[in-house]
């Protein structure tokens, strides 16, 4: 009986997604919505099947620019987070600047990037990086900075150096924060890459959608949207699985107990 409900729990999200598409399909039929306003899911899937190869080509382009930008965001986010987290003074000093920087709409930066780097892949990678870097860095810094003072005292009284505290406690402790931020950051990275592609690119899902929209090929636009969200869910899933594998202890020590 318990097994059954566990399986049900796993399947419910799938049911919700299927129900969403069914209601959408029914609504377009029932209210006779023309497909240049809101295409039915069946139409969208049809377009996806028909233009499978070009869509996959564009999706591949978006995926790899996103991943490269994201990889840079991870590297610099970790580095910046460790540096900021290790010194409250640095943290306080840089925080306002970083907030200000993060408040800039990234779409406004893209034209500047185009002036600097030209049209194409590089602005997309940089936008993906810029938009996903911040949450990673802030999370890592927070994880390190919120170290229990008593634990720090225990280590200091043993004669531990700053570096020891960082390696033995600070960094491991910030890992749950890091992985939690990855889930947010990967979807943001997609947004960044696609924004850039819609403004300044000759390929990628963003470019595909804008050019389809300019031809009023609304089903193809929706196909692009759908592919984007599938990629987003996929990457989120990867991040979530890695999180489970590596820092499961964090979930067990706070949330409901497994076993």
């Amino acid at each position, binding site marked *: 009986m318990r097994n059954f409900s566990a399986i049900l729990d796993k399947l419910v999200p799938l049911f919700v997604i299927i129900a969403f598409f069914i209601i959408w399909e029914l609504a377009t039929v029932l209210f006779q919505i023309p497909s240049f306003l809101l295409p039915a899911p069946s139409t969208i899937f049809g377009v996806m099947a028909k233009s499978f190869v070009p869509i996959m080509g564009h999706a591949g382009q978006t995926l790899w620019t996103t991943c490269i930008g994201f990889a840079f965001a991870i590297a610099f986010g970790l580095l910046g987070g460790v540096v900021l987290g290790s010194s409250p003074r640095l943290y306080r000093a840089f925080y306002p600047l970083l907030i200000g920087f993060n408040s800039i709409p990234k779409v406004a930066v893209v034209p500047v990037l185009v002036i600097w780097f030209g049209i194409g892949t590089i602005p997309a990678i940089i936008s993906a990086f810029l938009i996903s870097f911040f949450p990673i860095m802030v999370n890592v810094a927070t994880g390190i900075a919120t170290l*229990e003072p008593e634990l720090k*005292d225990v280590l*200091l009284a043993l004669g531990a150096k700053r570096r020891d505290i960082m390696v*033995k406690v600070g960094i*491991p402790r910030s890992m749950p924060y890091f992985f939690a931020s990855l889930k947010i950051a990967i979807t943001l990275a997609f947004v960044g890459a696609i924004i850039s592609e819609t403004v300044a690119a000759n390929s990628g899902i963003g470019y595909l959608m804008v050019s389809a929209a300019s031809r009023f090929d609304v089903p193809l636009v929706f196909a692009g949207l759908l592919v984007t969200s599938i990629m987003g869910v996929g990457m989120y899933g990867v991040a979530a699985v890695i999180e489970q594998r590596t820092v499961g202890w964090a979930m*067990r*020590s706070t949330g409901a107990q497994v076993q």
Partner: protein
Amino acid sequence: MQPFVDFDNVSLRYGGEENGLLALSDINLKVKEGEFIAIVGPSGCGKSTFLKATTGLWPVTSGSITVNQEKVRGPVNCVGMAFQNPTLLPWRNTINNVLLPLEVVQPQRSMWGRKRQDYIQSAKDLLEMVNLTGSEEKFPWQLSGGMQQRVSICRSLIHEPKLLMLDEPFGALDMFTREDLWVALQDIWLKKRPTIILVTHDIREAVYLADRVIIMAARPGRIVAEEVIPFERPRPLSLTFDSEFGKIFSSIREKITEVSV
């Protein structure tokens, strides 16, 4: 013989020089090597501050502190500490939590590779003394609060520190666990003879465990009295029902009540 811990006219002010809070005022105290001291006093009287000053975690405003013949200027080395909350590392199992100090302090740190098996054995011995055999591989979330606290005490002892600082380590435990741990701590102390400074709210605990009980008062934090506890070692738990024990208990209690108002 030189005292192991020597407070010479120590004052400590949190915040500014003038208008900050005077947490310790003119503290004079000498602790012999291997002595077991307990500090009692009302909440906020500066007991934890006393520990922070001794270990060099907070600088004193005036006066000087000497530990093991050396003037305290920054964080001292090799001191064992345990607090009311266990602060274990949730990603390490019991054994690896206990072993943490050996990865930090010298000289054990540089012998880590060669001596690893010996270290694990001494961690197991310590865990046995606090009744935790069988929990070596468990993670903190699999242990009860009292068990975690015992692990934390083992962690403070693993490197055989010459000075052990305990800040209400048994405060969050039930009475039976607490009494078991008193006995265990006394055994460990008799065996290894570290100098222990124990901060506690529990007068029974202080009288049962310590050679000398220091009574502090608040605003400003100062030492108002001390009581030498004459009972022989090892002390049985039943001693706490003894009439002589009761007299000392009441006298300390009275002194704390006096300074609390």
